[in-house]
Every structure is written in C-alpha cells, then in structure tokens.
C-alpha cells in the first residue's frame, strides 16, 4: 500500500554520458581531418574525369597549383596564369628546388607523387614547362587532380 502511495517522480534523464559521446565524435573528426597547410593564392576549377585513382600515401604527395590569381590578389598580380608552390608564386624552373625540398621531408622519397591541381582553362604551354622540369628532377609520378564525373 505504502508503495503505491509514494510519489511517482519521473526519473531525470542522465546526461553525464553526453560529453563522452561528443568526445568520441570529436576524436573521429580530429583523426580524419586534413587541414590545408597552404593558403591558396590561385583559384582553380579542376576538370572532371571518369578514370580517376585515389591518391594513396598522403605523406608522399606534393601539390602544385596552377591558375589565375585569386580575386583579392588580382589587382596586384594581374590575371595571367600563375604557379603556386607552398605559399608563394613561382616560376616553372623553381619547381626543381621545390621537388628536392619536398623530398627531404618524405619518409619514402621513391614514391613521391606530384599532384597537379590545374585550372581547366589553363593553356598547355605552362603545363608542359612544368612537366619538363619535373622530368629533369626525376619526379615522374604525377597525378592530374580532378573531380569524378558520372558516365
């Protein structure tokens, strides 16, 4: 009898495990995140293709960006096609130093891959110059960055 008379309070929902839950999600994102270490000074829209491969081994990839300067920089730099290596604009011949410098930071320099992020309206002349320098510096594995397109 007394049992039934006792006030039936709704037990409070315990939220003490909420932080753990959020922390788990947080760690997931911390692990998968890859922050871009350079600020882009060129803008580019990569072409779309169907026969793409994923870039394996992130630590062995160096990026070369090619495209016109971003809108903020256009007033100073004009709208001609530029090459960006790390944080600054560069000339095609400077690619050789860049390759050598990147190689020193890599665990396995033999599998170095150059990922070329090139704007689709770039003319082939500048790209050929870069490729020629890459050949000379023995960075033979290249990857034309692109987005996937449905058939």
């Amino acid at each position: 009898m007394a049992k039934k008379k006792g006030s039936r309070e709704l037990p409070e929902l315990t939220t003490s495990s909420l932080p753990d839950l959020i922390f788990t999600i947080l760690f997931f994102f911390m692990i998968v995140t890859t922050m871009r270490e350079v600020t882009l000074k060129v803008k580019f829209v990569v072409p779309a293709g169907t026969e793409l491969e994923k870039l394996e081994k992130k630590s062995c990839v160096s990026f070369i960006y090619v495209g016109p300067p971003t809108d903020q920089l256009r007033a100073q730099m004009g709208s001609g096609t530029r090459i960006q290596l790390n944080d600054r604009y560069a000339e095609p011949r400077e690619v050789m130093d860049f390759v050598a410098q990147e190689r020193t930071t890599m665990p396995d320099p033999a599998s170095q891959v150059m990922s070329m992020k090139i704007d689709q309206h770039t003319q082939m002349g500048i790209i050929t110059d870069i490729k020629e320098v890459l050949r000379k510096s023995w960075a033979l594995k290249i990857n034309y960055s692109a987005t996937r397109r449905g058939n």
Partner: protein
Amino acid sequence: MARKKKKVPGLNASSTADISFILLIFFLVTTSMDTDMGLARRLPQPPEPNQEDAQIDVKERNVLNVRLNAAGNLMVNHDFIDINQLRARAKEFIQNKNNSPKLPELHAKQIDLLGTCYVTDKHVISVQTDRGTPYNVYFLVQNELVAAYNELRDDLAIAKFGHPYARCSEDEQIAIRTYYPQKISEAEPKNYGGN
C-alpha cells in the same frame, strides 16, 4: 551527536558537453573528407645529356597520332574527330582485331596464364599538343585514352578470368598488363597554326 559525513561536492561537469561541442563544430568545419583523386600518369625518364636524337624508329602503322590544336580541335592520324569518338578509335587501334595492315602489327607472345597470344605490343599512342591547347581538352583526351585501355583490360579479364581487372590477383593483372601495355607518349608541344 554523530556528525554528518562531510560530502565532497561533485564537480559540475555539465559544461563539458558544451566545450566538446565547440571543438566538434570546429573540426566539422575545417575537415575536408574528400580524398584527393586524379588521373595518374607517369612521365618518361629525362633524356641522357649526351643523347642527341633519341628518336626510335617506329613504323607508321604502329603509331596513333593524336593532335590537339590551340582551339581544342582533335585530329587523329589524318581525320578530325569528336572527343566522343576517340575512345572507340583508340580501342580499335590497340586491339587490331582483324589484323588489318593499317593498324599495329600483331606479334605472337607467350604470356603466363594466358598462353600464346597475338598482341600489339609495339603500338604507341602519341599525344601532341599546342602551347595554347586548353588544359581541359588535353585532360579529356588523356581520360578517354586511359578509359580505352581500362575497358579493354576489363573485357579481357572477364573473358579469361571471369571477373573485372580490379578484382584480379596480382599475377592475373600482370598478365593482362602484358597483353595490353599502356603506351601513351607525349611529344614536345608544337605550334600548330600559331597563337
């Protein structure tokens, strides 16, 4: 007069959730999950310094000349074609099913797992661009050529091993790569029709 036990006040942890939420949102915003993708190519080795003219004589029938001009027009051997026709054209060239004298010569070759096959292992697809060719046209051409090879390899893998190329074992992939070696060469750009 038993004293009440002194209770240690519990640490208020209710704001931990908020803190971790803020961190979570930060990482959510900065994260870029997209894996970088692209068309993988391999550049030829640099020429030896004392090598004067490394022109290897290749028979005309073994070469598919793909030329791109500054306007982005495509010419294969002596025909102007559309980019959509390139894949079929390249497949026909690489295969040479009917042993046509205009397409690359077939050689008997002993391949592990496949036995003796007649393959066009001397063929070359030469891509030549102008300095003014737009990059996206060049990229599409490369994409179509790689697609031609991939389709042929897949067809062969299904015919011989019953599953597509990507699911073949290491040895099977080597056999198929020997059957259809990827030979795309890139010549120095020339100025076709000026800029």
